[in-house]
């Protein structure tokens, strides 16, 4: 479900009409098909009062915030709509944590605890962002915590320099709401799904094997991965072939390990290397159930030289 949010009813008017939103059990929550619309109220704390509840109650996959904002930089036009790139927060002082919503955009926003009523304050905020709002950062914090995608598009209503005439903005509210609706319709509805490039496996694979194959395939071109997957007889062979294609040295490393392990395996013993191949320790194990086992182990160990391990960890991978 998609959740649309804005601070004021006036901003939402066109949306309510266009999508025939109906009130839900809260006064400021509306629903229409697979869409919810929340009018948050103004200010950083108002904006999130209901958000965690809605996330818990509805299956929300995406939040889209829209609203009007003041510009902190001169290079905007009144009525221009921008996508927010990164959202910052000013809570008596700059708050360290930020959230990036859209890397493709070029406009940063700062959520201010207070209304911007003085030029000096606007100048301070302009050190960090291009536009100022009063709601977005806490929303981003919650969306981030719940791993929900958040977008924000803002209409520039004025220049935040302390000379704001609220009545002018109010008189433009319907027009601004219509503009935001048009922008939403053009950019967020009827998006075409991305083509499915998943590989089809012709062999059985467990969940974790499928994940591994998917991860490795993504490191190769589709064609390279496709060829290897098609030629593989089972999941393990497929994973190994993909790994070796990505890193041929890994094959040399495994061959060297097998070479060192060979004499131990022949007598039913095992020699284990550090899983991360970082520590030079090895562990030898064997089930002993006869004198012959002991003699075999003594013979193999007496031929075994630790130099082989040293050599291996020093990068000599020749067999």
């Amino acid at each position: 479900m998609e959740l649309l949010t804005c601070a004021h009813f006036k901003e939402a008017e066109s949306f309510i009409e266009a999508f025939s939103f109906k009130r839900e059990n809260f006064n400021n929550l509306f629903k229409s098909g697979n869409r919810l619309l929340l009018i948050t109220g103004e200010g950083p704390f108002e904006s999130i009062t209901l958000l965690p509840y809605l996330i818990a109650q509805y299956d929300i996959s995406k939040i889209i915030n829209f609203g009007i904002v003041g510009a902190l930089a001169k290079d905007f036009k009144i009525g221009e709509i921008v996508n927010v790139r990164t959202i910052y927060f000013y809570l008596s002082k700059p708050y360290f944590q930020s959230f990036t919503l859209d890397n493709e955009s070029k406009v940063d926003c700062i959520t201010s605890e207070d209304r911007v009523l003085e030029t000096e304050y606007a100048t301070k905020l302009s050190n960090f962002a291009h536009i100022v709002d009063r709601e977005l950062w806490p929303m981003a914090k919650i969306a981030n915590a719940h791993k929900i995608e958040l977008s924000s598009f803002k209409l520039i209503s004025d220049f935040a320099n302390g000379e704001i005439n609220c009545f002018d903005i109010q008189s433009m509210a319907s027009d601004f709401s219509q503009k935001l609706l048009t922008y939403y319709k053009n950019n967020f509805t009827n998006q075409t799904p991305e083509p499915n490039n998943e590989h089809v496996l012709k062999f059985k694979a467990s969940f974790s094997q499928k994940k591994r194959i998917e991860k490795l395939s993504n490191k190769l071109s589709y064609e390279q991965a496709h060829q290897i997957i098609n030629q593989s007889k089972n999941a393990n062979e497929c994973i190994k072939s993909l790994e070796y294609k990505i890193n041929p040295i890994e094959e040399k490393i495994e061959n060297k390990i097998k070479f060192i392990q060979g004499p131990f395996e022949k007598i039913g013993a095992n020699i284990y290397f550090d899983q991360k191949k970082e520590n030079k320790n090895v562990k030898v194990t064997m089930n002993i159930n006869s004198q012959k086992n002991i003699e075999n182990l003594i013979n193999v160990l007496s031929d075994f030289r630790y130099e082989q391990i040293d050599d291996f960890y020093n990068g000599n991978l020749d067999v």
Partner: protein
Amino acid sequence: MFSTVFVEQDIYQTQRVQSILAKIKYKNIKTLSRYDDVWGKVKKPYLQKRENLNLFIANKRGNLIKETPDAYGTGRGKHFYFIHSYNCIYECEYCYLQGYFNTPDIVFFVNHEDIVKQMGELIQKYPNEELWFHAGEFSDSLNLSHITQEYKIYYDFFKNNPNCFLELRSKSVNIKEVIELPPLDNIIISFSLASDSSAKEFDRKCPSIKHRLNAIEKLAYKNYKLGLHFDPIIYHEGFLEEYETIFEQLSHLPLETIQYISIGVVRFTKDVYHQVANNYPDSNIHKLDFTKSFDNKLRYNRPMRMWVLNRIKNSLLLKGFQDEKIYLCME
């Protein structure tokens, strides 16, 4: 070039700051009492350096010179790095700066005399040690040196202190400031180099390897002392052949000008690794697996990286570079 330039009020009128401002392009300029009232106060995403890079001009306070970590440098002497700048105009995909500071915005510290003064104090503190001072730990030492013009200050100091060494580390070809002054035996201009395809793929906005080699050649024939850093090496198919081409070209230079060669394999702290994954999710850097190594940094596993380093080192030796000048970096 810069969105906003922030200058500390106290130094705004100084000739050095005015000279910098005259050489750069910027949209806005502001003064502030301390650069760190704004710089690093909020987490500014690294990739915003592409469209929204700010510059701060300030005085560095506190510790201007710090001792380097172990396994740094040639293994002889005592090593320090000094801080005259933060951040870089280049955008190398593996760069640790993306996870080190909380902002990509550049800072020029202009109180070089204070740095030089601290260098003098260290010389007095360690009279019997060979002291090395490295620049370029948090920035490229040369790429903006025609704007900042601090080279002459350090040059004069090291001319008067021939027993200690200065290393300027760079990927730049901006050697204008350097060649205006004659070479000194204790100033080493060092260049980071990579295979041609690695540089094209990962060293974003940096000069090509061809151009870096041209700069090295120019300096070598004028008898400047040089350092070469083949670091970080990122494994890719055909990497060795590409490095051999570079070694071949370098082997024709007067080899006595090359003071040391470091080789190192790509490595990340955990934080930087996550930043790289976040900033460059499709980068081929992630192609190979990394594992937590001896110092908790993420590296290729030990046999793999030693295999890579051995091949690079052998290839250097075959081209006539001296064994004693080659060292493994951070291994």
